[in-house]
């Protein structure tokens, strides 16, 4: 069965050009970039190129890029680093809708005696800057707020947030795993101090990521025991992965326009058609500024896992904020934080597109989703009563 892949916020297909770029660095050019000989040296040069390419996408200087293993590592490193750099500051600010890679370290730190503020969001998933302004103080070491939400695609006003954070001298980190490659970034004119990104979310391979650390920002490494990445991230480099990430960043820059025109148009059409053809549907975060590729729709009176599995039977890959898919029992913390009504929190599905998505894919999704929702509502003891009322 040919898959229709609409789960690009989970992971993406490695671009062929990226794969070609990394391919020689397994069996042929396997040298260690730290070695003195020519064989390692040629890999070192390729890593430098990857650093330049990654920096270019972010509008950063190459020496501000630290390659690592994943977005999670970047997030953990940034938060720890800030706390070590400002030991006298004991306050952390984040949001209730962060990825667990930020929320869990923050909650663990709360158990160790740090004060942690989790900012709330409104029904559309938007932050209140006033709430942030009231929370940040001279005790705040770091504010870690995601660039864009992985479930709803809601984009936060990062530069306005950064300006508020700077007033009190705290560091500002953003988890930009979902934003890089989807929205233009320019660290040269930004208030961001640290930014995490992940390779496999932008058509590079899994197991590679990067942390941007602005020049002059105090930094304490998480991994020590080697001089790699100028001693800021010890451990032999994932050479092929880093080279893949560099190429993927170069391509992401070229596709940025496509992402914001063609991909956005497909997303908008998918959303409009679902809303037109299916009653009792809402778009989570629909009124907020969002990533061009993400669409989170809540179908009332049906349960997400059942929708996903029926779509999967038709080859359609999406994901859900539903509890039943994750092994937990409550709907996603993001939807709960947004106060999505309980009638539909269990039936939220996320479609996330990419440059590989085609108009035919969108046609198929629209064609298949309508009878699936209808079928599940017919099975449901609520579906008919409620729909009849509506």
């Amino acid at each position, binding site marked *: 069965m040919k898959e229709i892949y609409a789960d690009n916020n989970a992971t993406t297909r490695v671009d062929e050009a990226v794969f070609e770029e990394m391919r020689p660095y397994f069996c042929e050019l396997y040298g260690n970039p730290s070695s003195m000989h020519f064989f390692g040296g040629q890999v070192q040069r390729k890593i430098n190129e990857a650093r330049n390419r990654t920096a270019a996408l972010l509008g950063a200087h190459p020496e501000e890029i630290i390659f690592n293993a994943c977005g999670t590592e970047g997030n953990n490193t940034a938060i720890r680093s800030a706390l070590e750099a400002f030991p006298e500051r004991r306050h952390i600010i984040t949001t209730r809708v962060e990825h667990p890679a930020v929320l869990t370290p923050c909650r663990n730190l709360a158990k160790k005696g740090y004060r942690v503020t989790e900012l709330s969001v409104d029904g559309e998933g938007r932050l209140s800057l006033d709430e942030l302004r009231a929370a940040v103080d001279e005790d705040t070491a770091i504010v870690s707020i995601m660039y864009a939400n992985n479930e709803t695609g809601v984009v936060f006003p990062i530069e306005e947030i950064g300006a508020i954070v700077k007033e009190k001298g705290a560091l500002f980190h953003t988890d930009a795993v979902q934003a890089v490659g989807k929205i233009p970034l320019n660290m040269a004119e930004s208030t961001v101090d640290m930014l995490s990104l992940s390779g496999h979310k932008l058509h590079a391979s899994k197991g590679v990521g990067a942390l941007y650390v602005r020049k002059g920002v105090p930094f304490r490494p998480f991994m020590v025991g080697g001089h790699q990445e100028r001693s800021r991230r010890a451990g032999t480099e994932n050479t092929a992965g880093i080279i893949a990430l560099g190429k993927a960043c170069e391509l992401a820059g070229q596709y940025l326009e496509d992402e914001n025109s063609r991909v956005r148009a497909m997303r908008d059409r998918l959303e409009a058609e679902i809303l037109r053809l299916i009653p009792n549907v809402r778009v989570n975060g629909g009124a907020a500024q969002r990533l061009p590729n993400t669409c989170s729709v809540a179908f009332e009176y049906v349960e997400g896992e059942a929708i996903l599995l029926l779509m999967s039977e038709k080859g359609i890959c999406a994901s859900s904020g539903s509890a039943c898919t994750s092994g937990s*029992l409550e709907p996603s913390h993001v939807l709960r934080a947004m106060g999505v009504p309980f009638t539909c929190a269990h039936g939220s599905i996320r479609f996330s597109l990419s440059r590989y998505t085609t108009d035919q894919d969108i046609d198929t999704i629209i064609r298949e989703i309508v009878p699936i929702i209808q079928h599940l509502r017919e*099975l449901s003891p609520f*579906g008919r009563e409620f729909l009849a009322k509506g």
Partner: protein
Amino acid sequence: MWEYTDKVREHFLNPKNVGEIPDADAVGEVGSLACGDALKLYLKLDEQKERIVDAKFQTFGCASAIASSSALTEMLKGKTLDEALNISNQEIAEFLGGLPEEKMHCSVMGQEALEVAIAKYRGGPVPGHEHVQPEMAGEVVCKCFGITDEFLKKVIRENKLHTAEQVTHFTKAGGGCGGCVPQINALIAEVMGEQPKEEQKKPGKLSNLRKMQLIQEILENEVRPLLWADGGDLELIDIAGSTVQIAFRKACAGCVSSGYTAKFVEQKLRDAVADDIRVEEVEG
């Protein structure tokens, strides 16, 4: 992705007996929209009002909830009400070739709906289930999902559950805010304490040395593995006469329900070694 059996897939993709029975003799409804799953079960009896001639369902929920409902309605046809009441949630799961443990609550929901339907038909008290007037039987333990202690004890007993995580998988209790997990642990200890005593043969008069050996064996082989399952542990500090001193480790250390756990350990040792054993929790 969940590993579902072919039977679950079959009953999910092509569920049997979907719909309502307008002139049903018995109707049982459990669950709610807020909880993420709900089941409404309809039963039609024969003219003597003895055997179930038709069963239909409506389910809001995940694939295994739909498959469990479909399986239950198939199992019910032709059974008397008493035979139907004997269907356990394990049998529903077995009918489907098994369910992932995290999804066992779906089979429990099927059995609950059945009990409610038959109890309402017979006009007796409705069993204290999730969302069914919890005050009717027992006290609400899990406030997130409205689940009572009586119901939890029944499921713990019937399914031989011994960790809070398992109880969550089977009933959802504790899966929301997690605030009731200590109470769930206490209920597990209580149910374990009520296991028939005659199963365990208590030795007669023991030498001190043998007694100490036995205590160590019980702690190593029967108690600590249960604690490990919950991320906890204990250490034997000393045995002085009949007093056994233990210190809790890992998740058990500082756990609000460690008092219950100490009681549970004491009961275990009394059952297996001697009636006069006293367990003391010490810092160490």
